[in-house]
Each structure stands twice: as C-alpha cells, then as structure tokens.
C-alpha cells in the first residue's frame, strides 16, 4: 500500500517522510523519568512545585 511507510515504517521508504523524520527528530522526547519515588515524601507539602525543583536538581547533578 502506498502509505505503508507513513503508517508503520514498512514497505518502500517515502523519501519525503524520511526527510521530515530526520529534520523533526531533533524535537523528540529524550528526558529520563523523574524520581517518582520521591513524590510521596513531598506530596503533602504546601508547595508541590518542590517536586520539579528536586527533579531538576536531581538530573542536573
């Protein structure tokens, strides 16, 4: 089928789709999972954004 490559990557490669995949791949998600096991400890803290501060520090370090 004509659009098989777009659908599931099978069949004859579509050069334009491949070009777009290459160009747009730079925006692909590439972050590791945050430390969800730490969420419970700060879940009831009045400032929930501490979680993100923690996560950033955790992965920056």
């Amino acid at each position, binding site marked *: 089928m004509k659009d098989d490559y*777009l659908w599931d990557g099978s069949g004859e490669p579509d050069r334009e789709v491949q070009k777009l*995949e290459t*160009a*747009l791949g730079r*925006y692909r*998600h590439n972050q590791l999972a*945050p430390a969800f096991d730490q969420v419970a400890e700060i*879940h009831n803290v009045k400032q929930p954004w501490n979680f*993100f501060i923690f996560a950033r520090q955790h992965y920056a370090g």
Partner: protein
Amino acid sequence: MERQAVTAWPVTESREEDSLVSAARGGDRAAFGRLYDRYARMVHGILLARVPPREVDDLVQEVFLLALRQLHSLRDLSRFGAWLGTITRNRANDYFRKAIPHEKVTEPVSESQAESKTANNAVEQEAAVILAVVRGLPESYREPLILRLVEGMTGPEIATRTGLTHGSVRVNLCRGMQLLREKLAETTKGASSA
C-alpha cells in the same frame, strides 16, 4: 469511541499495562515510572502540537505529576492512555489561559520566526519552519503527524497509546501528510520567490 482490535500490540502487553496502572494506583512508584517510559513520547507529542517547544519538557513533568495525583479517579484501567491524553490536552489549554496572547499556536508563522531566532544554522532553521507548518495544520492532523514524525511512533502505536481506532489514526495521518506536503510546497515556493 469504538476501539478496534489491536494486532500489533498483543493482549499480554495490554494485561501487563493494566497491571502497571493498578500497581501505580496502589502507590507503586516504580510502576508509574514504567508507565512514564511508555507514554512520555505521547505526552510530549501532544504538548508539542499545542504549546511552544521550549515549554514542552517542563509541561511533560507537570502532566505526569497531575496524572499521579489523579490516578485514583481512573475507572477503566485499559483507558489509561486516553485518560492521560485528555489530561495532557487540558494542561496545554491551561497553558494558554495563563500565557500572553502572542504565544498562541494558531500563529505558526510568527512562532516560526521566533523559534528561528534561536536556531544556530540552516538545518535547525529548516526544522523550526517545518515544525511550525505542522503546528499550523488542523488539530486532528497535527497531533498524529507529530507523534509519527517527531516522536517516531508507528500508526498502530499511536492508536494503542491514544485509544483511537487504527482507522481514524491512519486516515488522519494520510490526509495530514497530504496537506503538509501542500503547505511545505507553498512555503518553499514563497521563500524562493521572495
């Protein structure tokens, strides 16, 4: 919405995922981490279709924290993906309620120019322009196209993760790609004649 049989994703995976969701709801953070691994690209893609790229990474984390807190409200474990997708779209909408007007996704050209300012070379600029064109497409097309072209998900994977039918995802991918080709041709033509 009707859910078609998923041939590319075996029943065992579906059951395994239900177990993960159940475990996560029971407080198993490692299980929730595995759900993050499975769904982070979907969440990232849905957000990228709606909000400025520089905001997406932070919002991905926000969405998963929201999901973790609201997981107890999910009634049908097998609908986790669709449920998470809804949370993600709502968070993107909230972003615009709080954001200044000029950051709306409905202004792809101005956003393209803004993103291009930070691009270091022609390749990055080209990618920013292509992304802006995709983000200017109708919502039903831009989301599956971003999941396919940016996040590298296959059509069957998009259907499974989002809870949409294979048929609707395939139609939107094909029609969206056709429209994207036309828009990119217009963009190229406009750039060369300028």
